[in-house]
């Protein structure tokens, strides 16, 4: 009954214009195997999978199923051949019910094209029971948590009788616990004969679940690896050279506290408290990293500091000045430098020139403007200087910023934000989607800013980055502070904290009602302190 399927990609090449996204890639997915495609952001993994799924036509090469070449003109053909895909960004219609989403594209109908969703509901229940998914077919997708939405995606593929399931970066939006559950589901699927192509750049998960690992770098297969291979080995294969997983940085020399958040609450348009009575502080010359799974209030926290959130209570004090209630412009003028999490959406104007982007928040200040009259010469002059200083690779200062690579765009944003004297530097996901070479550069600049005595706040969902940069780590869960721990706290403890479980060991400084106690600025963890109330609250949600 179980139809197993062997999938082979032979010599797949995909070009976009002159850009070579995939270069003669060969991959064989054996039946009933979890096959991992490991590679950095931008290595070409997703492009390859979109080719396999019929969304892109390969420039060259063949797809073979059970050793017979097939040609997919669209995802419909791929699905008919038994290939299912869970995209990194879910492909669910938010205003449809689960059943409608599952039915879409392969709708059971009565006469004359009338929908018969009962059949779909039945199938959802069957699959849901089989795998313990617990999904309500009549729930609206937009009301479901991310983890459940992902299960809906898997159901979509299973209803279509997928024999090969492609999972594209499926853990990016999950908590460590949800990730473990997903890995279990993957093993279950495998045991029932479904092959899985697992795309990831997270080495631990890859090692935990894969049968075979194919490493892709800059559009090429650079080799296969055994899941038993060491993390360092895999990392250097993925990046293409020996990587030092740690950043050389001098220990922090923290000075006085100049930035303090007290009892901050942000209410979303729907009434939810997305940031919930949050208190913390940052001292001059230290990096505080805010860790947590995506969507736990990090975005709203940075937006509240910047003045982009409307319903904010509590207090944000920088150099003794209250920032709550101020406009973005006033906050920036108070000396806040901000690198937003999504540079293309919030950080850059893609159609503007590099030079103009470099003055995006300085255009109306001297020397770039006198009154409302701007000086293009000064803008150009500034650009030439910054481009050199930050090693931004661009054809010219007049080139549109949208044409630069991700890493160079990020350098551009960073160059702009660090080009004026700062009293606080906030960088959200500073290296997301950036190649390794740029990551090192960007990290060094962040540390340099710290060493100049600026309080620095880093928001990152990548635990590696948090551990590398932070002098202290604050973990957010559902808008609440789970706790603040020193650098060097173990990955396991942080993982639990990200799921809302407070650490047994932590510094108590953030929990005093007035925000911090000046006594406990030690870098060492203080053992045996009882978990304060705010932490217990966080644990309730776990």
């Amino acid at each position, binding site marked *: 009954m179980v139809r197993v399927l062997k999938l082979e990609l032979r010599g797949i090449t995909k070009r976009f214009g002159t850009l070579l996204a995939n270069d003669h890639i060969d991959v064989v997915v054996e039946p009933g195997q979890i096959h991992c495609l490991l590679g950095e952001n931008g290595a070409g993994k997703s492009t390859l999978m979109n080719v396999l799924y019929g969304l892109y036509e390969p420039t060259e090469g063949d797809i073979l199923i059970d050793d017979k070449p097939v040609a997919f003109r669209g995802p419909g053909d791929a699905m008919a051949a038994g290939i299912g895909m869970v995209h990194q960004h879910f492909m669910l219609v938010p*205003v449809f019910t689960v059943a409608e989403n599952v039915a879409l594209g392969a709708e059971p109908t009565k006469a004359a094209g009338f929908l018969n969703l009962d059949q779909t509901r039945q199938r959802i229940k069957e699959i849901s029971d089989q795998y313990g998914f617990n999904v309500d077919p009549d729930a609206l997708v937009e009301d479901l948590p991310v983890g459940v939405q992902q299960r809906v995606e898997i159901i979509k593929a299973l209803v279509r009788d997928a024999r090969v399931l492609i999972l594209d970066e499926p853990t990016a939006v999950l908590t460590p616990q949800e990730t473990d559950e997903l890995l279990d589901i993957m093993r279950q699927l495998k045991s029932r004969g479904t092959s899985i192509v697992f795309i990831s750049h997270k080495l631990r998960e890859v090692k935990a679940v894969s049968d075979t690992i194919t490493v892709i770098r800059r559009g090429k297969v650079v080799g296969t690896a055994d899941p038993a291979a060491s993390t360092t080995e895999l990392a250097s294969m993925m990046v293409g050279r020996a990587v030092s997983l740690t950043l050389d940085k001098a220990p922090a020399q923290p000075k006085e506290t100049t930035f303090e958040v007290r009892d901050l609450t942000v209410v979303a348009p729907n009434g939810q408290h997305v940031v919930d009575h949050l208190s913390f502080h940052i001292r001059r010359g230290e990096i505080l990293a805010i860790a947590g799974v995506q969507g736990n209030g990090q975005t709203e926290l940075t937006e509240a500091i910047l003045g982009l959130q409307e319903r904010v209570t509590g207090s944000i004090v920088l150099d003794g000045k209250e920032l709550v209630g101020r406009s973005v412009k006033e906050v920036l003028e108070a000396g806040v430098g901000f690198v937003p999490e999504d540079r293309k959406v919030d950080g850059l104007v893609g159609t503007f020139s590099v030079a103009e982007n470099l003055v995006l928040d300085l255009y109306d200040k001297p020397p770039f403007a006198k009154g409302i009259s701007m000086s293009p010469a000064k803008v150009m002059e500034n650009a030439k200087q910054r481009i050199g200083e930050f090693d931004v690779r661009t054809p010219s200062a007049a080139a549109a910023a949208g044409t630069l690579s991700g890493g160079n765009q990020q350098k551009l944003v960073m160059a702009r934000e660090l080009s004026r004297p700062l009293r606080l530097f906030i960088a959200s996901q500073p290296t997301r989607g950036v190649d390794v070479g740029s990551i090192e550069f960007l990290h060094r600049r962040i540390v340099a800013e710290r060493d100049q005595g600026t309080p620095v706040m880093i928001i990152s969902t990548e635990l590696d980055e948090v551990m590398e940069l932070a002098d202290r780590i604050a973990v957010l869960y559902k808008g609440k502070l789970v706790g603040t721990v020193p650098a060097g706290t173990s990955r396991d403890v942080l993982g639990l904290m990200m799921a809302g479980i407070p650490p047994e060991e932590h510094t108590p400084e953030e929990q005093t009602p007035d925000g911090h106690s000046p006594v406990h600025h030690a870098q060492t963890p203080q053992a045996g302190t009882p978990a304060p109330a705010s932490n217990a609250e966080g644990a309730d949600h776990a």
Partner: protein
Amino acid sequence: MSTTVSSPRPGSPKPGGAGAAAPATVLAAKPVSWKTPVLLAVFALVSLVFFGFLAPRQTASFGISTGGDFFQLPALEINAFAGGIVLSVLLVALAGYAVFLKTKGQPAPGWLPVTFIVIFVAAFLIWVVGGARTPAISLAGLIAGSVTLAVPLVFGSLSGVLCERVGVVNIAIEGQLLGGAFTAAIVASMTKNAFIGLLAAAIAGAVVSMVLALFSIKYLVNQIIVGVVLNVLVSGVTGFLFSTVMQANKAQFNSPPGLDVIDIPVLSSIPIIGPILFRQSLVGYLMYVAVAVVWVGLFKTRWGLRVRAVGEHPQAADTLGINVNATRFWNVTLGGAVAGIGGSFFTLVAIDSFTKEISGGRGFIALAALIFGRWNPVGAFFAALLFGFADNLQSIVTIIGTPVPSQFMAMLPYLVTVLAVAGLVGKSRGPAASGIPYVKG
């Protein structure tokens, strides 16, 4: 935002990023806005003061039966002052209920604004008629006339529904109506057959729509630009051909046989309802059919599910093997055909020849009806009826001589639409996101 045309971008800039994560923490109900209760209260007070206290002390007479009716009902005689007070008190009560619900954190139910609008219109009508020189109108005639005037609006707004639900903004309704009107006239004249003219009108509307689809889907030209330009183009082409061809030989090219009113015996003699439902031209009957078919099609069939998916999240539809661009192309084309039929109303039913700009901006009122009706075929139908009512009332008030300038009546659909898009009317009704199409460049 949720009531606008452009906001429909659920899938767009960040399909996954923060957007995908948001539902994890965002589970609460939609927020309840103060806008609706406050606005209802304001309108209730306006009604109380103007239609109530300041009402003329005349008696307004509303004829219900017409001569040929099946049985005769006496005319409704209402003292303008008393009627105004009673209805205004009802409005105040409704507004108070909305405020009460708001304080309890609940949104006003969908029937509330609808009921409010109906009562407000009634109060207004009594006030207008009560203040006229001859305070008597035929209610039956007023309503039947409203339906007639609404016919092209309904077809136009259905065209809009079909296009926008699939993710293409249709500003070209005006052009589709005009193209349909012209083609119906010329083809019916040449073939001496109104039915062929009707068919030709549908094809003409579809052709206009195909240009919209071609440029917006294949060449990715901004849909609003194509729509605006198409209106000018159709206006130019029909105007040109009218001047050169039709005027040169009116008998041959511009005297179409009309589509007569088809009276369904007995049923058409029921007071008020009879003329509305059973005394219509073929185009009028088609209107009812079209509203029903589009509604059932959109919400009950496979086709509709796919259309809505394409309009809401085209990428999702694409990954499930649905051809997004083909779906869009054919739906937009279908929408054009529907509007084309609406256009034929001008030359085959209302007037028996074509003149320049015969559609007179009704395409834009249809667009307004579509928005006011929240991208729902039935909603659009009732919105179109309301605008048809305003249009008809405008000519009636000029005849009976009221103090309200007719220009303000003419302005009404546009004012109402501004209020609607500004989110001031009925924002609380239903999950707004369900009616929002996806618009891409």
